């Protein structure tokens, strides 16, 4: 490990060459997380260990892991980048992502903890016909997770190349394969325990890194927010408009409605994201699930307040010309600037630290997504749909590990060609599907006695299909034209292909009501009564925890 020799690191830092230092810190992140995974996997014996970490985490630990699972590189680099480029409009993401947690806290977390077991489907299957409901829930779980996963992995390839300053397709492909291999390793070896600890470590690194940069930025402006904002408005050359809403979304009525649609999907999507929902099963009681969300809200809230400082800080201190069009470089460049600037030791060190934090962020999120899909395939599809519940723990966990390999492999194979496409819409699509397909089914199941199997399958398939069909016929898929700078298509399909008829890029405002409507329609057209008879049980169990696992 000669690359890790202290004098070489120091030398690299002194020359202001951050690449070596960044690579060393990347390796340190990999070594740390791999070590933790081995350590955490010592006691993986039962299915509950593998899927839910033995339900042994405390509320505080799980809250940190939720924060680690939720705060993706897209929110770390993406939101601060969006603020650095379009000012106030970027801030609106932070608010939606945070307020969303109230839905999870008030309506979902505790009730789900009491009535489910390992996956999102468990909670529905409690009073419905197992096979149709689990198949539907697994379909939407895997769909949401794969959309999210693809976005993260393609982002990882571009990001690592950007952070190392090497624009090579080979390096991007290598990064995708490497990130994919690591996530498969965490999930196969560590299960929920390993994944949780990777997420906790990431949350600590991310909070520490952003806090450090935020304090350094504020110190530059004498801890005066108004001065920071003024400097941002001036440095970007956009003046007061930079501090006001509308720079990005306020152009036309369509873009305004699109923004409203995005806001609705963000706030309702979080509580339907399968990789967040399964985290509630890792604590022993509903009370600890509540504590988890309170911790998560605190950490995520503080984090998004800091992205505001990072974003406006980058706008104030970084030359706008040097930030990439996606804005992902805003935070790393800001770190370099507050460390002393380009070519300084301090600048190189801080840039490398933030790059490593971003890398850890990606790893923790993709691990959570892979585990969620693998759990759903093994527990819902294999154990309950195919084997009808007649499986041993050992067999089920074995299938979950195989599924993790399969899903990880598919994600790698899809991510490599997807790099040349514009897939920026995938995260928003994941939120829209979660809000349109999963949330209606979850809320109906918990609060509507009459809800039944057909209602559940209608709301899940209906919401999923609505969101996907609307996105398919929207400008994100075709007809948006070419980027004036690069000439690349702004849509998924090449320039010139245009079959779009739905004007909004975010389908939520239409697909979420449709998800609820389908759920209602399916329910009232079905004569099934069993689910109604079982509701008393679900009600008592979800409210009191009586008989909960």
């Amino acid at each position: 490990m000669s690359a890790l020799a202290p004098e070489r690191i120091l030398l690299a830092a002194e020359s202001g060459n951050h690449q070596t230092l960044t690579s060393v810190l990347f390796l340190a992140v990999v070594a740390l997380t791999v070590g933790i995974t081995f350590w955490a996997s010592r006691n993986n014996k039962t299915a509950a260990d593998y899927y839910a970490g033995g339900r042994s985490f405390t509320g505080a630990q799980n809250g940190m892991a939720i924060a680690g699972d939720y705060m993706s590189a897209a929110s770390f680099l993406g939101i601060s980048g969006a603020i650095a480029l379009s000012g106030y409009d970027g801030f609106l993401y932070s608010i939606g992502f945070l307020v969303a947690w109230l839905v999870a806290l008030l309506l979902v977390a505790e009730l789900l903890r009491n009535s489910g077991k390992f996956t999102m489907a468990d909670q529905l299957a409690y009073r419905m016909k197992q096979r149709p409901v689990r198949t539907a829930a697994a379909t939407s779980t895997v769909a949401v997770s794969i959309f999210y996963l693809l976005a993260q992995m393609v982002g990882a390839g571009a990001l690592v190349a950007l952070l190392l300053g090497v624009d090579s397709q080979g390096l991007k492909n290598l990064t995708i394969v490497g990130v994919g291999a690591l996530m498969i390793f965490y999930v196969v070896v560590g299960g929920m325990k390993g994944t949780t600890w990777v997420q906790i470590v990431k949350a600590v690194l991310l909070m520490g890194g952003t806090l450090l940069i935020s304090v350094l930025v504020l110190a530059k402006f004498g801890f005066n927010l108004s001065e920071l904002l003024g400097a941002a408005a001036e440095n970007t050359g956009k003046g007061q408009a930079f501090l006001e809403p509308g720079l990005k979304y306020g152009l036309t009525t369509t873009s305004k409605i699109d923004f409203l649609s995005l806001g609705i999907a963000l706030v309702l999507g979080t509580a339907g994201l399968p990789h967040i929902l399964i985290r509630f099963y890792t604590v022993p009681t509903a009370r600890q699930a509540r504590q988890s969300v309170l911790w998560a809200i605190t950490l995520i809230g503080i984090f998004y307040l800091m992205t505001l400082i990072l974003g406006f800080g980058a706008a104030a201190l970084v030359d706008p010309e040097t930030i990439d069009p996606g804005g992902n470089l805003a935070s790393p460049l800001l770190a370099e600037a507050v460390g002393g600037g380009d070519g300084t030791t301090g600048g190189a060190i801080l840039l490398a630290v933030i790059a490593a934090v971003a890398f850890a962020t990606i790893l923790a999120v993709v691990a959570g997504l892979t585990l969620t899909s693998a759990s759903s395939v093994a527990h819902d599809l294999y154990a309950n749909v195919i084997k009808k519940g007649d499986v041993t723990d050992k067999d089920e966990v074995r299938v979950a590990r195989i599924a993790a390999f399969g899903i990880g492999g598919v994600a790698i194979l899809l991510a490599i060609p997807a790099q040349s496409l514009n897939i920026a819409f995938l995260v928003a699509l994941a939120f829209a599907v979660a809000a349109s397909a999963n949330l209606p089914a979850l809320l109906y199941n918990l609060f509507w006695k009459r809800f039944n199997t057909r209602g559940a399958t209608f709301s899940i398939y209906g919401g999923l299909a609505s969101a996907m069909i609307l996105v398919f016929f929207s400008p994100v898929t075709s007809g948006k034209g070419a980027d004036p700078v690069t000439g690349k298509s702004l849509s998924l399909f090449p320039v010139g292909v245009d079959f779009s008829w739905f004007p909004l890029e975010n389908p939520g405002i239409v697909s979420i009501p449709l998800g609820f409507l389908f759920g209602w329609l399916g329910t009232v057209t079905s004569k099934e009564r069993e689910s109604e008879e079982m509701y008393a049980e679900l009600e008592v169990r979800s409210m009191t925890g009586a008989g909960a696992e």
Partner: protein
Amino acid sequence: MVDRTTPSQDAAYERIRATDEFASLKKKYLGFVVPMTIAFMVWYLLFVVCSNWAPGFMNTQVIGNINIALIFGLLQFVTTFLIAFLYSRFSTANLDPTADKLRAEYDKEIR
């Protein structure tokens, strides 16, 4: 598989479901979360709508470069923290004791 319950468990669930205590637990829970959910959703949507359609109001400068839009946004953080805190306090004081009692009854009944 969520294991199917035994007849004695079914009976215990049905009995607890029929108690006044359970009815009041559910009522208290819904009495808190339903108005609160409506309140924060309206408050949040008001913010999104104002950002879109009330530029004059949102762009009013209050102190230095700090305008209403920023204060409105920061207030969303404050209300989120506040509602989370209020819910935690409410459920610890008003929901947990009843839920614990009913769960203990269930455990005793099916043993």
